[in-house]
Protein backbone atom coordinates (compact mmCIF):
# COMPACT_ATOMS: atom_id res chain seq x y z
CA UNK A 1 0.00 0.00 0.00
CA UNK A 2 2.85 2.35 0.92
CA UNK A 3 4.59 1.34 -2.29
CA UNK A 4 1.49 2.13 -4.29
CA UNK A 5 1.20 5.53 -2.63
CA UNK A 6 4.85 6.20 -3.32
CA UNK A 7 4.39 5.41 -7.00
CA UNK A 8 1.33 7.63 -7.17
CA UNK A 9 3.16 10.55 -5.53
CA UNK A 10 6.15 10.15 -7.88
CA UNK A 11 3.73 10.01 -10.77
CA UNK A 12 1.98 13.18 -9.65
CA UNK A 13 5.32 14.98 -9.46
CA UNK A 14 6.33 14.12 -13.02
CA UNK A 15 2.71 14.57 -14.04
CA UNK A 16 2.75 18.20 -12.91
CA UNK A 17 5.60 18.83 -15.35
CA UNK A 18 3.75 17.07 -18.15
CA UNK A 19 0.71 19.17 -17.33
CA UNK A 20 2.72 22.39 -17.56
CA UNK A 21 4.15 21.39 -20.94
CA UNK A 22 0.72 20.28 -22.12
CA UNK A 23 -0.84 23.58 -21.00
CA UNK A 24 1.59 25.56 -23.12
CA UNK A 25 0.79 23.41 -26.15
CA UNK A 26 -2.97 23.50 -25.62
CA UNK A 27 -3.08 27.24 -24.94
CA UNK A 28 -1.36 27.88 -28.24
CA UNK A 29 -3.33 25.33 -30.23
CA UNK A 30 -6.69 26.66 -29.03
CA UNK A 31 -5.84 30.16 -30.05
CA UNK A 32 -3.83 29.81 -33.21
CA UNK A 33 -4.47 26.26 -34.51
CA UNK A 34 -0.73 25.74 -34.52
CA UNK A 35 0.67 22.60 -32.98
CA UNK A 36 4.02 23.82 -31.71
CA UNK A 37 6.67 21.15 -32.18
CA UNK A 38 9.31 23.64 -31.09
CA UNK A 39 7.80 23.86 -27.59
CA UNK A 40 10.38 21.52 -26.06
CA UNK A 41 13.33 23.28 -27.64
CA UNK A 42 12.00 26.69 -26.67
CA UNK A 43 11.89 25.58 -23.07
CA UNK A 44 15.40 24.14 -23.05
CA UNK A 45 16.70 27.35 -24.61
CA UNK A 46 15.06 29.13 -21.67
CA UNK A 47 16.83 26.81 -19.24
CA UNK A 48 20.18 27.43 -20.92
CA UNK A 49 19.67 31.18 -20.88
CA UNK A 50 18.90 31.07 -17.17
CA UNK A 51 21.92 28.86 -16.56
CA UNK A 52 24.22 31.18 -18.51
CA UNK A 53 22.88 34.16 -16.56
CA UNK A 54 23.53 32.32 -13.29
CA UNK A 55 27.10 31.43 -14.25
CA UNK A 56 27.62 35.07 -15.21
CA UNK A 57 26.81 35.88 -11.60
CA UNK A 58 23.30 37.24 -11.92
CA UNK A 59 21.07 36.92 -8.85
CA UNK A 60 18.79 33.88 -8.95
CA UNK A 61 15.39 35.56 -9.54
CA UNK A 62 16.84 37.79 -12.25
CA UNK A 63 18.45 34.86 -14.03
CA UNK A 64 15.19 32.91 -13.93
CA UNK A 65 13.32 35.89 -15.31
CA UNK A 66 15.90 36.20 -18.08
CA UNK A 67 15.44 32.54 -19.02
CA UNK A 68 11.65 32.63 -19.02
CA UNK A 69 11.55 35.99 -20.77
CA UNK A 70 14.05 34.85 -23.37
CA UNK A 71 11.92 31.85 -24.27
CA UNK A 72 8.85 34.09 -24.53
CA UNK A 73 10.62 36.61 -26.77
CA UNK A 74 11.93 33.83 -29.02
CA UNK A 75 8.44 32.37 -29.35
CA UNK A 76 6.93 35.74 -30.27
CA UNK A 77 9.62 36.52 -32.81
CA UNK A 78 9.13 33.15 -34.50
CA UNK A 79 5.42 33.88 -34.74
CA UNK A 80 5.97 37.40 -36.09
CA UNK A 81 8.65 36.51 -38.62
CA UNK A 82 7.56 33.16 -39.97
CA UNK A 83 3.96 32.34 -39.10
CA UNK A 84 2.16 35.68 -39.20
CA UNK A 85 3.04 36.46 -42.83
CA UNK A 86 1.59 33.17 -44.04
CA UNK A 87 -1.60 33.32 -42.01
CA UNK A 88 -4.30 31.16 -43.49
CA UNK A 89 -1.70 28.56 -44.38
CA UNK A 90 -2.46 24.88 -44.01
CA UNK A 91 -2.11 22.81 -40.85
CA UNK A 92 0.62 20.89 -42.64
CA UNK A 93 2.53 24.09 -43.36
CA UNK A 94 2.45 25.33 -39.78
CA UNK A 95 3.43 21.92 -38.39
CA UNK A 96 6.42 21.85 -40.74
CA UNK A 97 7.37 25.42 -39.83
CA UNK A 98 7.45 24.64 -36.11
CA UNK A 99 9.42 21.45 -36.79
CA UNK A 100 11.94 23.50 -38.74
CA UNK A 101 12.12 26.01 -35.88
CA UNK A 102 12.73 23.10 -33.49
CA UNK A 103 15.61 21.90 -35.66
CA UNK A 104 17.16 25.37 -35.72
CA UNK A 105 16.81 25.79 -31.95
CA UNK A 106 18.27 22.38 -31.11
CA UNK A 107 21.14 22.99 -33.52
CA UNK A 108 21.86 26.39 -32.01
CA UNK A 109 21.86 24.92 -28.51
CA UNK A 110 24.37 22.24 -29.43
CA UNK A 111 26.44 24.87 -31.16
CA UNK A 112 26.42 27.48 -28.40
CA UNK A 113 26.29 25.41 -25.24
CA UNK A 114 27.75 22.09 -26.40
CA UNK A 115 26.47 18.61 -25.62
CA UNK A 116 28.20 18.17 -22.27
CA UNK A 117 25.82 17.90 -19.35
CA UNK A 118 25.62 20.61 -16.69
CA UNK A 119 24.05 20.91 -13.28
CA UNK A 120 21.34 23.46 -12.64
CA UNK A 121 21.41 24.91 -9.13
CA UNK A 122 18.06 24.94 -7.35
CA UNK A 123 17.17 26.22 -3.89
CA UNK A 124 15.35 22.99 -2.99
CA UNK A 125 17.40 19.83 -2.68
CA UNK A 126 16.74 16.52 -4.38
CA UNK A 127 18.45 14.50 -1.67
CA UNK A 128 16.71 15.97 1.37
CA UNK A 129 13.55 14.01 1.86
CA UNK A 130 10.23 14.79 3.48
CA UNK A 131 8.69 11.70 5.07
CA UNK A 132 4.96 11.52 5.28
CA UNK A 133 3.68 8.26 6.63
CA UNK A 134 5.75 5.70 4.76
CA UNK A 135 6.00 7.83 1.65
CA UNK A 136 9.28 9.60 0.97
CA UNK A 137 9.17 12.73 -1.13
CA UNK A 138 12.17 14.84 -2.00
CA UNK A 139 11.99 18.55 -1.32
CA UNK A 140 12.33 19.27 -4.98
CA UNK A 141 9.34 17.08 -5.78
CA UNK A 142 7.22 18.91 -3.25
CA UNK A 143 8.41 22.20 -4.70
CA UNK A 144 7.74 21.12 -8.28
CA UNK A 145 4.30 19.88 -7.42
CA UNK A 146 3.49 23.08 -5.51
CA UNK A 147 4.81 25.50 -8.12
CA UNK A 148 3.29 23.46 -10.94
CA UNK A 149 -0.14 23.52 -9.32
CA UNK A 150 0.17 27.24 -8.59
CA UNK A 151 1.00 27.95 -12.23
CA UNK A 152 -1.87 25.80 -13.43
CA UNK A 153 -4.31 27.54 -11.08
CA UNK A 154 -2.98 30.97 -11.98
CA UNK A 155 -3.30 30.25 -15.66
CA UNK A 156 -6.87 29.07 -15.39
CA UNK A 157 -7.84 32.18 -13.42
CA UNK A 158 -6.06 34.29 -16.03
CA UNK A 159 -7.87 32.65 -18.95
CA UNK A 160 -11.27 32.70 -17.23
CA UNK A 161 -11.29 36.06 -15.48
CA UNK A 162 -8.93 38.53 -17.11
CA UNK A 163 -9.56 40.75 -20.14
CA UNK A 164 -6.66 39.13 -21.98
CA UNK A 165 -7.97 35.68 -21.19
CA UNK A 166 -11.34 36.68 -22.56
CA UNK A 167 -9.69 38.02 -25.71
CA UNK A 168 -7.78 34.78 -26.10
CA UNK A 169 -10.95 32.77 -25.82
CA UNK A 170 -12.63 35.02 -28.35
CA UNK A 171 -9.80 34.62 -30.84
CA UNK A 172 -9.83 30.87 -30.23
CA UNK A 173 -13.50 30.71 -31.13
CA UNK A 174 -13.43 32.86 -34.23
CA UNK A 175 -10.56 35.19 -35.08
CA UNK A 176 -12.55 37.21 -37.60
CA UNK A 177 -15.53 37.77 -35.36
CA UNK A 178 -13.16 38.73 -32.56
CA UNK A 179 -11.53 41.33 -34.78
CA UNK A 180 -14.95 42.68 -35.75
CA UNK A 181 -15.69 43.55 -32.12
CA UNK A 182 -12.32 45.19 -31.66
CA UNK A 183 -10.08 42.46 -30.28
CA UNK A 184 -6.55 42.97 -31.66
CA UNK A 185 -6.22 39.37 -32.84
CA UNK A 186 -2.60 39.73 -33.95
CA UNK A 187 -1.45 41.05 -30.59
CA UNK A 188 -3.51 38.45 -28.71
CA UNK A 189 -1.90 35.68 -30.74
CA UNK A 190 1.56 37.11 -30.12
CA UNK A 191 0.79 37.27 -26.39
CA UNK A 192 -0.38 33.66 -26.50
CA UNK A 193 2.90 32.61 -28.09
CA UNK A 194 4.81 34.49 -25.40
CA UNK A 195 2.77 32.98 -22.59
CA UNK A 196 3.18 29.51 -24.04
CA UNK A 197 6.94 30.01 -24.31
CA UNK A 198 7.15 31.19 -20.70
CA UNK A 199 5.08 28.22 -19.50
CA UNK A 200 7.33 25.82 -21.39
CA UNK A 201 10.47 27.41 -19.99
CA UNK A 202 9.11 27.26 -16.45
CA UNK A 203 8.45 23.54 -16.91
CA UNK A 204 12.05 23.29 -18.09
CA UNK A 205 13.42 25.16 -15.08
CA UNK A 206 11.39 22.95 -12.72
CA UNK A 207 12.72 19.83 -14.42
CA UNK A 208 16.34 21.00 -14.78
CA UNK A 209 17.48 20.33 -11.19
CA UNK A 210 16.29 16.71 -11.41
CA UNK A 211 18.20 15.84 -14.57
CA UNK A 212 21.45 16.99 -16.10
CA UNK A 213 21.01 19.94 -18.38
CA UNK A 214 21.84 19.23 -22.00
CA UNK A 215 20.25 20.30 -25.30
CA UNK A 216 18.02 17.22 -25.44
CA UNK A 217 16.76 17.33 -21.85
CA UNK A 218 13.30 18.53 -22.86
CA UNK A 219 12.74 16.04 -25.68
CA UNK A 220 11.22 13.35 -23.51
CA UNK A 221 9.10 15.62 -21.25
CA UNK A 222 7.96 17.50 -24.34
CA UNK A 223 6.76 14.32 -26.03
CA UNK A 224 5.03 13.26 -22.83
CA UNK A 225 3.42 16.66 -22.47
CA UNK A 226 2.29 16.38 -26.03
CA UNK A 227 0.78 12.99 -25.31
CA UNK A 228 -0.93 14.44 -22.27
CA UNK A 229 -2.35 17.29 -24.34
CA UNK A 230 -3.79 14.95 -26.94
CA UNK A 231 -4.98 12.54 -24.26
CA UNK A 232 -6.91 15.28 -22.49
CA UNK A 233 -8.30 16.77 -25.67
CA UNK A 234 -6.07 19.20 -27.48
CA UNK A 235 -8.43 22.13 -27.05
CA UNK A 236 -9.27 21.73 -23.41
CA UNK A 237 -7.16 23.39 -20.69
CA UNK A 238 -8.56 21.25 -17.86
CA UNK A 239 -8.02 18.29 -20.18
CA UNK A 240 -4.32 19.09 -20.41
CA UNK A 241 -4.04 19.08 -16.62
CA UNK A 242 -5.99 15.84 -16.24
CA UNK A 243 -4.01 14.29 -19.09
CA UNK A 244 -0.69 15.37 -17.61
CA UNK A 245 -1.34 14.04 -14.11
CA UNK A 246 -3.02 10.92 -15.51
CA UNK A 247 -0.11 10.10 -17.76
CA UNK A 248 2.41 10.74 -14.98
CA UNK A 249 0.65 8.39 -12.55
CA UNK A 250 0.02 5.74 -15.21
CA UNK A 251 3.66 5.82 -16.26
CA UNK A 252 4.95 5.63 -12.71
CA UNK A 253 2.68 2.66 -11.93
CA UNK A 254 3.74 0.93 -15.16
CA UNK A 255 7.42 1.50 -14.37
CA UNK A 256 6.93 0.25 -10.82
CA UNK A 257 4.92 -2.87 -11.47
CA UNK A 258 5.69 -3.91 -15.05
CA UNK A 259 8.80 -2.59 -16.74
CA UNK A 260 10.96 0.50 -16.48
CA UNK A 261 12.45 0.01 -19.90
CA UNK A 262 9.25 0.28 -21.86
CA UNK A 263 7.97 3.28 -19.87
CA UNK A 264 8.27 5.65 -22.80
CA UNK A 265 6.83 3.16 -25.25
CA UNK A 266 3.80 2.95 -22.96
CA UNK A 267 3.12 6.66 -23.34
CA UNK A 268 2.78 6.27 -27.07
CA UNK A 269 0.83 3.05 -26.80
CA UNK A 270 -1.61 4.97 -24.59
CA UNK A 271 -1.90 7.80 -27.07
CA UNK A 272 -2.67 5.56 -30.04
CA UNK A 273 -5.19 3.56 -28.00
CA UNK A 274 -6.82 6.73 -26.66
CA UNK A 275 -7.06 8.26 -30.09
CA UNK A 276 -8.69 5.11 -31.42
CA UNK A 277 -11.36 5.06 -28.75
CA UNK A 278 -11.91 8.77 -28.28
CA UNK A 279 -10.37 10.78 -31.11
CA UNK A 280 -11.34 14.03 -29.39
CA UNK A 281 -9.51 13.21 -26.15
CA UNK A 282 -10.82 12.65 -22.61
CA UNK A 283 -12.32 16.08 -22.00
CA UNK A 284 -12.49 17.36 -25.56
CA UNK A 285 -15.74 18.02 -27.31
CA UNK A 286 -16.53 15.53 -30.08
CA UNK A 287 -15.12 16.65 -33.41
CA UNK A 288 -17.81 18.07 -35.58
CA UNK A 289 -17.38 19.38 -39.04
CA UNK A 290 -19.78 21.58 -40.88
CA UNK A 291 -20.20 20.60 -44.50
Amino acid at each position, binding site marked *: MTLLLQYVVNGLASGSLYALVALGIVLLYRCSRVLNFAHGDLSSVGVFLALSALTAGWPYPLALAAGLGGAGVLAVSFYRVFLRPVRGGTVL*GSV*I*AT*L*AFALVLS*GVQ*VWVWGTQTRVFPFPLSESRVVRWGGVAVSERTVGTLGIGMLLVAGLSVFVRKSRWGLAMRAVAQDPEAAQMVGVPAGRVLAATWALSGVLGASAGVLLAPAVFVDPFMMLDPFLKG*FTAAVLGGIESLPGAVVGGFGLGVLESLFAGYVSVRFKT*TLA*FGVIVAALLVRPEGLLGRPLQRRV
Partner: protein
Amino acid sequence: MELRTSYAQDLRLVSGTAGWAALLAFLGVLVALPLFAPRYVVYVATLVGVHGLVAVGLNLLMGYTGQISLGHAGFVAIGAYAHGLLLTRLGWGFGPAFLAAAGLSGVAGSLVGLPALRLTGPYLAVATLGFGLAVHQGLVNWEALSGGRSGLFFPEVSVLGRSLRDERVLYWVVLAVVAFLVLVACRLVRSYIGRAFVAIRDSEISASTVGIHLTAYKTLAFGLSALYAGTAGALLGHVMGFLEPQLFTLFESVYFLAMVVVGGLGSVSGSLLGAALLTLLPQLLSGMREALNVVYGLVLLLVLRFDPGGLYGRWLRIWRYGKSWPL
Protein backbone atom coordinates in the same frame (compact mmCIF):
# COMPACT_ATOMS: atom_id res chain seq x y z
CA MET B 1 3.13 25.27 -69.15
CA GLU B 2 2.05 24.61 -72.68
CA LEU B 3 -1.61 24.26 -73.53
CA ARG B 4 -2.87 20.72 -73.36
CA THR B 5 -5.48 19.71 -75.89
CA SER B 6 -5.99 16.03 -75.21
CA TYR B 7 -6.09 13.57 -72.32
CA ALA B 8 -3.16 11.66 -73.81
CA GLN B 9 -1.01 14.78 -73.41
CA ASP B 10 -1.96 14.93 -69.77
CA LEU B 11 -0.87 11.34 -69.22
CA ARG B 12 2.43 11.66 -71.06
CA LEU B 13 5.51 11.68 -68.85
CA VAL B 14 7.98 12.99 -71.41
CA SER B 15 7.08 15.26 -74.26
CA GLY B 16 8.82 15.77 -77.58
CA THR B 17 12.12 14.61 -78.99
CA ALA B 18 14.06 17.12 -76.92
CA GLY B 19 12.49 15.79 -73.73
CA TRP B 20 13.35 12.21 -74.59
CA ALA B 21 16.88 13.14 -75.56
CA ALA B 22 17.42 15.01 -72.30
CA LEU B 23 16.00 12.14 -70.23
CA LEU B 24 18.09 9.51 -72.02
CA ALA B 25 21.25 11.60 -71.72
CA PHE B 26 20.57 12.09 -67.98
CA LEU B 27 19.98 8.36 -67.44
CA GLY B 28 23.08 7.57 -69.51
CA VAL B 29 25.24 9.78 -67.28
CA LEU B 30 23.71 8.20 -64.16
CA VAL B 31 24.40 4.65 -65.41
CA ALA B 32 27.95 5.49 -66.47
CA LEU B 33 28.74 7.47 -63.29
CA PRO B 34 30.68 4.72 -61.44
CA LEU B 35 32.94 4.19 -64.48
CA PHE B 36 34.59 7.57 -64.16
CA ALA B 37 33.61 9.09 -60.79
CA PRO B 38 35.62 8.50 -57.60
CA ARG B 39 34.29 6.05 -55.03
CA TYR B 40 33.14 8.76 -52.65
CA VAL B 41 30.94 10.36 -55.31
CA VAL B 42 29.40 6.99 -56.09
CA TYR B 43 28.68 6.46 -52.39
CA VAL B 44 27.00 9.85 -52.06
CA ALA B 45 25.00 9.24 -55.24
CA THR B 46 23.80 5.92 -53.80
CA LEU B 47 22.73 7.68 -50.62
CA VAL B 48 20.87 10.30 -52.66
CA GLY B 49 19.00 7.48 -54.42
CA VAL B 50 18.01 5.85 -51.14
CA HIS B 51 16.84 9.12 -49.59
CA GLY B 52 15.07 10.02 -52.82
CA LEU B 53 13.08 6.81 -52.57
CA VAL B 54 11.85 7.68 -49.06
CA ALA B 55 11.07 11.23 -50.17
CA VAL B 56 9.07 10.09 -53.21
CA GLY B 57 7.09 7.68 -51.03
CA LEU B 58 6.47 10.32 -48.37
CA ASN B 59 5.38 12.76 -51.05
CA LEU B 60 2.73 10.30 -52.25
CA LEU B 61 1.33 10.46 -48.73
CA MET B 62 1.91 14.12 -47.85
CA GLY B 63 2.00 15.98 -51.12
CA TYR B 64 -0.67 14.03 -52.95
CA THR B 65 -2.98 12.59 -50.27
CA GLY B 66 -2.43 15.40 -47.76
CA GLN B 67 -1.81 13.10 -44.77
CA ILE B 68 1.14 14.01 -42.56
CA SER B 69 3.58 11.43 -41.25
CA LEU B 70 6.20 12.22 -38.64
CA GLY B 71 7.18 8.58 -38.28
CA HIS B 72 8.65 7.64 -41.62
CA ALA B 73 11.99 6.67 -40.11
CA GLY B 74 9.97 3.89 -38.42
CA PHE B 75 8.96 2.43 -41.77
CA VAL B 76 12.53 2.72 -43.05
CA ALA B 77 13.65 0.87 -39.92
CA ILE B 78 11.08 -1.90 -40.40
CA GLY B 79 12.24 -2.46 -43.98
CA ALA B 80 15.90 -2.33 -43.04
CA TYR B 81 15.69 -4.70 -40.07
CA ALA B 82 13.34 -7.13 -41.84
CA HIS B 83 15.77 -7.32 -44.75
CA GLY B 84 18.82 -7.65 -42.50
CA LEU B 85 17.27 -10.31 -40.27
CA LEU B 86 16.04 -12.37 -43.21
CA LEU B 87 19.55 -12.25 -44.70
CA THR B 88 21.42 -13.09 -41.51
CA ARG B 89 19.09 -15.26 -39.41
CA LEU B 90 17.25 -17.16 -42.12
CA GLY B 91 19.91 -17.04 -44.82
CA TRP B 92 17.53 -15.86 -47.53
CA GLY B 93 18.92 -14.54 -50.82
CA PHE B 94 18.86 -10.86 -51.70
CA GLY B 95 15.80 -10.99 -53.96
CA PRO B 96 13.31 -12.77 -51.68
CA ALA B 97 14.49 -10.93 -48.56
CA PHE B 98 14.24 -7.59 -50.35
CA LEU B 99 10.71 -8.23 -51.59
CA ALA B 100 9.61 -9.57 -48.21
CA ALA B 101 11.02 -6.51 -46.45
CA ALA B 102 9.27 -4.16 -48.84
CA GLY B 103 6.01 -6.08 -48.43
CA LEU B 104 6.27 -6.14 -44.65
CA SER B 105 6.79 -2.41 -44.35
CA GLY B 106 3.88 -1.89 -46.74
CA VAL B 107 1.66 -3.95 -44.45
CA ALA B 108 2.94 -2.00 -41.43
CA GLY B 109 2.06 1.19 -43.26
CA SER B 110 -1.49 0.10 -43.93
CA LEU B 111 -1.88 -0.87 -40.27
CA VAL B 112 -0.68 2.55 -39.14
CA GLY B 113 -2.97 4.05 -41.76
CA LEU B 114 -6.03 2.46 -40.15
CA PRO B 115 -6.17 4.74 -37.09
CA ALA B 116 -5.36 7.57 -39.47
CA LEU B 117 -8.83 7.19 -40.92
CA ARG B 118 -10.30 8.70 -37.78
CA LEU B 119 -7.60 11.27 -37.23
CA THR B 120 -6.92 14.52 -38.96
CA GLY B 121 -4.31 17.27 -38.84
CA PRO B 122 -2.58 17.52 -35.48
CA TYR B 123 -3.92 14.22 -34.17
CA LEU B 124 -2.49 12.34 -37.12
CA ALA B 125 0.85 14.10 -36.69
CA VAL B 126 0.96 12.98 -33.06
CA ALA B 127 -0.09 9.39 -33.80
CA THR B 128 2.54 8.91 -36.50
CA LEU B 129 5.12 10.62 -34.31
CA GLY B 130 4.25 8.09 -31.62
CA PHE B 131 4.64 5.25 -34.09
CA GLY B 132 8.12 6.40 -35.14
CA LEU B 133 9.24 6.79 -31.53
CA ALA B 134 7.79 3.44 -30.53
CA VAL B 135 9.72 1.69 -33.32
CA HIS B 136 12.94 3.43 -32.29
CA GLN B 137 12.41 2.63 -28.60
CA GLY B 138 11.52 -0.95 -29.45
CA LEU B 139 14.74 -1.37 -31.42
CA VAL B 140 16.83 0.11 -28.63
CA ASN B 141 15.26 -2.08 -25.96
CA TRP B 142 14.65 -5.35 -27.82
CA GLU B 143 18.28 -6.28 -28.23
CA ALA B 144 17.69 -9.91 -29.21
CA LEU B 145 16.07 -8.63 -32.38
CA SER B 146 18.07 -5.57 -33.28
CA GLY B 147 21.48 -6.28 -31.78
CA GLY B 148 20.82 -3.19 -29.65
CA ARG B 149 23.37 -0.42 -29.74
CA SER B 150 26.12 -2.73 -31.02
CA GLY B 151 24.22 -3.01 -34.28
CA LEU B 152 23.23 -5.59 -36.86
CA PHE B 153 25.86 -6.32 -39.48
CA PHE B 154 24.87 -7.10 -43.04
CA PRO B 155 26.45 -10.20 -44.59
CA GLU B 156 27.99 -10.18 -48.05
CA VAL B 157 25.31 -10.95 -50.62
CA SER B 158 25.44 -10.99 -54.36
CA VAL B 159 23.04 -9.92 -57.05
CA LEU B 160 23.41 -11.61 -60.45
CA GLY B 161 26.74 -13.06 -59.31
CA ARG B 162 28.22 -9.68 -58.28
CA SER B 163 28.88 -8.84 -54.65
CA LEU B 164 27.01 -5.86 -53.17
CA ARG B 165 30.16 -5.00 -51.18
CA ASP B 166 31.39 -3.45 -54.42
CA GLU B 167 29.92 0.05 -54.19
CA ARG B 168 29.56 0.26 -57.97
CA VAL B 169 27.33 -2.83 -58.06
CA LEU B 170 25.35 -1.47 -55.11
CA TYR B 171 24.97 1.83 -56.95
CA TRP B 172 23.58 0.13 -60.03
CA VAL B 173 21.15 -1.95 -57.99
CA VAL B 174 19.94 1.17 -56.16
CA LEU B 175 19.69 3.06 -59.45
CA ALA B 176 17.58 0.29 -61.00
CA VAL B 177 15.22 0.12 -58.00
CA VAL B 178 14.90 3.92 -57.81
CA ALA B 179 14.28 4.24 -61.56
CA PHE B 180 11.58 1.57 -61.42
CA LEU B 181 9.81 2.95 -58.35
CA VAL B 182 10.01 6.53 -59.59
CA LEU B 183 8.44 5.43 -62.86
CA VAL B 184 5.72 3.65 -60.86
CA ALA B 185 5.11 6.81 -58.82
CA CYS B 186 4.94 8.98 -61.95
CA ARG B 187 2.43 6.65 -63.59
CA LEU B 188 0.48 6.27 -60.37
CA VAL B 189 -0.11 9.96 -59.80
CA ARG B 190 -1.46 10.26 -63.33
CA SER B 191 -3.79 7.26 -62.90
CA TYR B 192 -7.24 7.24 -61.29
CA ILE B 193 -5.55 6.29 -58.02
CA GLY B 194 -3.37 9.40 -58.03
CA ARG B 195 -6.35 11.56 -58.89
CA ALA B 196 -8.26 10.02 -56.00
CA PHE B 197 -5.34 10.88 -53.70
CA VAL B 198 -5.38 14.49 -54.85
CA ALA B 199 -9.15 14.68 -54.46
CA ILE B 200 -8.84 13.48 -50.84
CA ARG B 201 -6.13 16.07 -50.20
CA ASP B 202 -8.22 18.91 -51.58
CA SER B 203 -11.45 18.00 -49.83
CA GLU B 204 -12.36 14.75 -48.13
CA ILE B 205 -16.02 15.48 -48.20
CA SER B 206 -16.24 16.24 -51.89
CA ALA B 207 -14.01 13.26 -52.64
CA SER B 208 -16.36 10.92 -50.84
CA THR B 209 -19.42 12.45 -52.49
CA VAL B 210 -18.03 11.61 -55.92
CA GLY B 211 -17.59 8.01 -54.82
CA ILE B 212 -13.97 7.84 -53.70
CA HIS B 213 -13.66 5.24 -50.98
CA LEU B 214 -11.78 7.21 -48.31
CA THR B 215 -10.86 4.18 -46.21
CA ALA B 216 -9.42 2.23 -49.11
CA TYR B 217 -7.47 5.09 -50.64
CA LYS B 218 -6.02 6.47 -47.40
CA THR B 219 -4.91 2.99 -46.36
CA LEU B 220 -3.45 2.49 -49.82
CA ALA B 221 -1.55 5.79 -49.62
CA PHE B 222 -0.09 4.87 -46.24
CA GLY B 223 0.81 1.37 -47.40
CA LEU B 224 2.46 2.56 -50.61
CA SER B 225 4.37 5.29 -48.83
CA ALA B 226 5.63 2.81 -46.24
CA LEU B 227 6.55 0.35 -48.98
CA TYR B 228 8.79 2.97 -50.59
CA ALA B 229 10.32 3.74 -47.20
CA GLY B 230 10.89 0.06 -46.41
CA THR B 231 12.52 -0.56 -49.79
CA ALA B 232 14.82 2.37 -49.13
CA GLY B 233 15.56 0.95 -45.68
CA ALA B 234 16.63 -2.42 -47.09
CA LEU B 235 18.98 -0.65 -49.51
CA LEU B 236 20.23 1.67 -46.76
CA GLY B 237 21.37 -1.39 -44.80
CA HIS B 238 23.64 -2.36 -47.68
CA VAL B 239 24.94 1.20 -48.06
CA MET B 240 25.79 1.46 -44.36
CA GLY B 241 26.93 -2.15 -43.97
CA PHE B 242 25.26 -2.35 -40.58
CA LEU B 243 22.19 -1.06 -38.77
CA GLU B 244 21.79 0.57 -35.40
CA PRO B 245 18.70 2.16 -33.84
CA GLN B 246 20.30 5.61 -33.97
CA LEU B 247 19.86 5.61 -37.75
CA PHE B 248 16.10 5.82 -37.26
CA THR B 249 15.41 8.63 -34.82
CA LEU B 250 12.75 11.31 -34.84
CA PHE B 251 15.28 13.62 -36.47
CA GLU B 252 15.53 11.30 -39.47
CA SER B 253 11.76 11.48 -39.92
CA VAL B 254 11.98 15.25 -39.88
CA TYR B 255 14.83 15.22 -42.42
CA PHE B 256 12.71 13.14 -44.80
CA LEU B 257 9.84 15.56 -44.34
CA ALA B 258 12.24 18.42 -45.06
CA MET B 259 13.32 16.77 -48.31
CA VAL B 260 9.72 16.55 -49.49
CA VAL B 261 8.89 20.14 -48.55
CA VAL B 262 12.10 21.64 -49.91
CA GLY B 263 11.69 19.71 -53.14
CA GLY B 264 8.05 20.69 -53.47
CA LEU B 265 4.90 19.01 -52.18
CA GLY B 266 3.06 17.14 -54.89
CA SER B 267 5.94 16.68 -57.31
CA VAL B 268 7.83 13.42 -57.80
CA SER B 269 10.86 15.02 -59.43
CA GLY B 270 10.82 17.71 -56.77
CA SER B 271 11.24 15.05 -54.08
CA LEU B 272 14.29 13.70 -55.87
CA LEU B 273 15.72 17.22 -56.09
CA GLY B 274 15.01 17.86 -52.42
CA ALA B 275 16.61 14.56 -51.42
CA ALA B 276 19.68 15.38 -53.52
CA LEU B 277 20.04 18.85 -52.01
CA LEU B 278 19.55 17.78 -48.40
CA THR B 279 21.87 14.77 -48.80
CA LEU B 280 24.62 16.84 -50.40
CA LEU B 281 24.41 19.67 -47.83
CA PRO B 282 25.68 17.55 -44.90
CA GLN B 283 28.52 16.25 -47.08
CA LEU B 284 29.56 19.82 -47.82
CA LEU B 285 29.24 20.74 -44.14
CA SER B 286 31.01 17.64 -42.88
CA GLY B 287 33.49 19.83 -40.98
CA MET B 288 30.75 21.32 -38.82
CA ARG B 289 28.22 18.69 -37.78
CA GLU B 290 26.71 20.93 -35.13
CA ALA B 291 25.56 23.37 -37.78
CA LEU B 292 23.65 20.66 -39.66
CA ASN B 293 20.34 21.02 -37.83
CA VAL B 294 20.53 24.79 -38.04
CA VAL B 295 21.10 24.65 -41.79
CA TYR B 296 18.31 22.11 -42.34
CA GLY B 297 15.90 24.13 -40.24
CA LEU B 298 16.78 27.43 -41.90
CA VAL B 299 16.50 25.99 -45.41
CA LEU B 300 13.10 24.61 -44.49
CA LEU B 301 11.90 27.87 -42.91
CA LEU B 302 13.10 29.97 -45.83
CA VAL B 303 11.43 27.67 -48.36
CA LEU B 304 8.17 27.81 -46.40
CA ARG B 305 8.35 31.57 -46.03
CA PHE B 306 9.42 32.61 -49.50
CA ASP B 307 8.91 29.70 -51.86
CA PRO B 308 6.12 27.37 -50.71
CA GLY B 309 6.26 25.50 -54.03
CA GLY B 310 9.75 24.27 -53.18
CA LEU B 311 12.58 23.73 -55.64
CA TYR B 312 10.22 22.26 -58.21
CA GLY B 313 7.91 25.27 -58.04
CA ARG B 314 10.87 27.60 -58.45
CA TRP B 315 12.10 25.56 -61.44
CA LEU B 316 8.65 25.69 -63.05
CA ARG B 317 8.62 29.48 -62.75
CA ILE B 318 12.08 29.84 -64.26
CA TRP B 319 11.12 27.47 -67.07
CA ARG B 320 7.93 29.35 -67.84
CA TYR B 321 9.79 32.62 -67.78
CA GLY B 322 12.29 31.19 -70.27
CA LYS B 323 9.49 29.87 -72.48
CA SER B 324 7.79 33.21 -72.77
CA TRP B 325 10.96 35.32 -72.87
CA PRO B 326 11.28 38.15 -73.99
CA LEU B 327 7.67 38.91 -73.09
